[in-house]
């Protein structure tokens, strides 16, 4: 069974591509969703408290908004957060893979596959691309945040040009090409 990474910068449209893979019968592991779940496990909370202080806790749970405000403005703290959370997520992914061994390949969907070096543990990486202005406007519309906030998050990600060099498959999601045929081509090649 192949382990395929699906990544893309913020607002590129990873989720909808993952959804198409999923509808086509390819199991998809949503690493960001898993990370959010893990964030509120007692072990992680205690480690986060030690690094970020009690201001990130609200009603006994991690206040993701407060945490995001800290890490997206400080790359070092973002790296610490990833170092705390992602090993757990990857371990969960390994466990999840064992339950999908009958599938020719599975998708690991995450925003920072290439930045974190996890790509080395995957067989291929599919990158979803879209021009930065389009990505920014998508995130503004989706999350109701302002342009500066989006720019701050983009700063913490590798430029799309760099990621294209590292990826094995590119899915263009700027609206000029249909998504489904692109996904089907990837499935055909991997299958």
């Amino acid at each position, binding site marked *: 069974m192949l382990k395929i990474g699906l990544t893309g910068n913020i607002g590129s449209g990873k989720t*909808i591509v993952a959804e198409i893979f999923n*509808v086509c019968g390819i199991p998809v592991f949503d690493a960001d969703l898993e990370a959010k779940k893990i964030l509120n496990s007692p072990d992680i909370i205690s480690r986060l408290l030690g690094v970020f202080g009690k201001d990130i806790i609200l009603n006994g749970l991690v206040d993701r908004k407060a945490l995001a405000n800290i890490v997206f403005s400080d790359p070092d703290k973002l790296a610490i957060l990833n170092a705390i959370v992602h090993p757990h997520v990857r371990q969960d992914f390994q466990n999840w893979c064992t339950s999908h061994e009958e599938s020719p390949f599975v998708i690991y969907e995450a925003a920072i596959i290439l930045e974190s070096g996890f790509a080395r543990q995957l067989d291929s990486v599919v990158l979803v691309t879209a021009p930065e202005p389009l990505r920014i406007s998508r995130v503004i519309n989706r999350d109701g945040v302002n342009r500066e906030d989006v720019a701050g998050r983009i700063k913490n990600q590798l430029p799309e040009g760099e990621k294209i060099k590292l990826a094995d498959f590119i899915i263009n999601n700027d*609206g000029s090409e*249909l*998504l*489904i*045929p692109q996904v089907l081509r990837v499935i055909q090649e991997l299958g």
Partner: protein
Amino acid sequence: MKYGYVMKFLNRIFNLHDEKVNYRMTVFVVCLILSTLVWILTKLSDSYSTEITFPVVFKNLPENKILVGSIDSVLKIGVHDRGFALVRLKYFTIKEPLEIELNNFRLRKVGHQYRTDVYSSYWSQGLAAEFDVEGDILYVLPDTIYFVFEDEFSKEVPVLPDITWSFEKQFLLYDSIRINPSEVTIRGLKDHIDTIDFVYTQKLELEGLSANVNRKIGMVVPGNNRNVKIDPVEVELTIPVEKYTESEIMTTLEIINLKKGQHIKLFPEQVKVTFLVALIDYKKINAEQFRLFVDLLDIESDLTRKLKVHIKSVPKSIRIVRIDPAEVEFLILK
């Protein structure tokens, strides 16, 4: 001294300096004026004949009839009287139009018309009394006035606004323009009425609207036909104007014409509707009021890759700016 004033006056005019010449000239001028006055008075005491024009208006036309053709609006009357009276009549009498009643005359039907011939001498006594003519009335011209009437027809026609407008920024038309009454009665000759299907309001240009418009406005008779009357002559025009703001909602697409056992997956399943809404309605709008769908009958062949997003229902008070995406990809699941 009167002589002194006269001399000063003449000096100013003729610039006379010789006293002797001055005196003679003054005497001459005074005598000339006096003799002229005496001549005029003498002449005006005599009797003369002249023609005087009197304006007339015709009132109380027969009911449901229309006067066709042009009728003289003046009567010319030959008068024989003393000069004084003629001068008064001709130059010093304010001649208000003489109102002439037409309802006393019998009409005779000729074809589709109704006619009556009125001898204008009929009104000569009335004119004499009205304008205080003491002398003899010699003639009245025209001596006969031919009145021709036709049946008046009427019908209801809609009123259409002939209005152009612009709004201040953020202001838009809130509802349709209302005209009250929306229909008016037009009256006139059958041939004229039959060709009219609607009437326009007077042309109105409104710029920079930022509030409701409520005003009375007249209408324009097609072709400016003066024989066509409009009732009422004015209508109430209402242009509802409100301040708008942009808003957006996400809504899940419905799927119609899905065959039994068929499953379809849309990408994306939700679309964003960006719309303009009046501030007064802003709080009344919610996502449940928006129903958008894709129609599987739009799949014309295996080559169809996207389905157009259709609007089933949205709040009446909004204006859709865009739907994003306007088309969605789909997968038919087997």
